[in-house]
């Protein structure tokens, strides 16, 4: 009984640290594609946090909307941002993306 509680607290602490670390890496990454992918991963860990907080409805909504749709929107915008980059001045070619599909 005591061990389970300890394990749960350890899991919560690890999840919290991972959330903060992922958010920092996503916001500080120089490559925009990597930043968006890290943000999607951050969203998936948020789903775990919602489950730990007894919020399954919020977890379902976050998994579909916050992770899937926001990630798709961001990646589509990044592709459109880079596809017009022939007319852009050469000074900010900081992101390299691979447009598959």
């Amino acid at each position, binding site marked *: 009984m005591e061990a389970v509680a300890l394990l749960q607290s350890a899991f919560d602490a690890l999840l919290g640290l991972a959330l903060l670390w992922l958010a920092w890496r996503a916001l500080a990454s120089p490559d925009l594609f990597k930043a968006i992918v890290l943000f999607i991963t951050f969203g998936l860990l948020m789903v775990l946090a919602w489950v730990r907080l007894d919020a*399954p*409805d919020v*977890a*379902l909504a976050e998994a*579909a*909307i916050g992770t899937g749709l926001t990630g*798709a929107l961001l990646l*589509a915008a990044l592709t459109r941002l880079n596809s017009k980059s022939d007319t852009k001045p050469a*000074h900010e070619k900081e992101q390299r993306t691979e447009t598959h*599909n």
Partner: protein
Amino acid sequence: MKKSNEPKPITENDSRQAQFRLLLAVPLSALAVGLAYAVLSLPSQAPGLSDHVAAKLETSGVSNPVTAVLLNFRGYDTLLELGVLLLALLGVWSLGAAPERREPPPGLVLELLSRLLVPLLILVAGYLLWVGAHAPGGAFQAGSVLATAGVLLLLAGWRLDSRFSGLPLRLALVAGLGMFLLVAVVLMLVGGRLLEYPPSFAGALILLIEAAATLSIAAALAALFLGGRPERGPQQ
């Protein structure tokens, strides 16, 4: 536009920026400490509104408390939220037409997976809509899973046929908000107050509103992914 193409030396601008970031850390740390103190000084046990909701749950027509709150007790917030979704779509549509498709035809993996996943996603969305009355689920979850199916189709190169991208698409988009308003107006005419469901058929009303809202949320989110006005048919 004047631009410097050679790498800039460490200018006074850069050192000013570094100073600014250092200076910014002080008020932000103070803010974080203040918020943490505010959070920690809250009582560690607080029932909030869960007792009130549990007391009235039978009269709401569903047994999932979150669905009851979303669609019945705080239904007005949900009505306005559907309006917000439409407003965002209106903003995106007013900014320009959908970017033309210059993508190559989808690869084998995407095509196969989308054929497998889209029917499954539609099924899951229907299940989530139905089960939201007594288990975690509901209109928003179902609508967003359906929107994901739409996004998958859009990625695979499918576009709405031009016969449907005019009035039928717009009808699907306003169906949720429209159904909500219709129920509200009819209830007010019949004698109740705004969005006061009679407990005997509150469950049916909630399911009706949720079904229309699922369709609208899915259409709006998928249209937001497209990023612009779809091209209309020749004659609308």
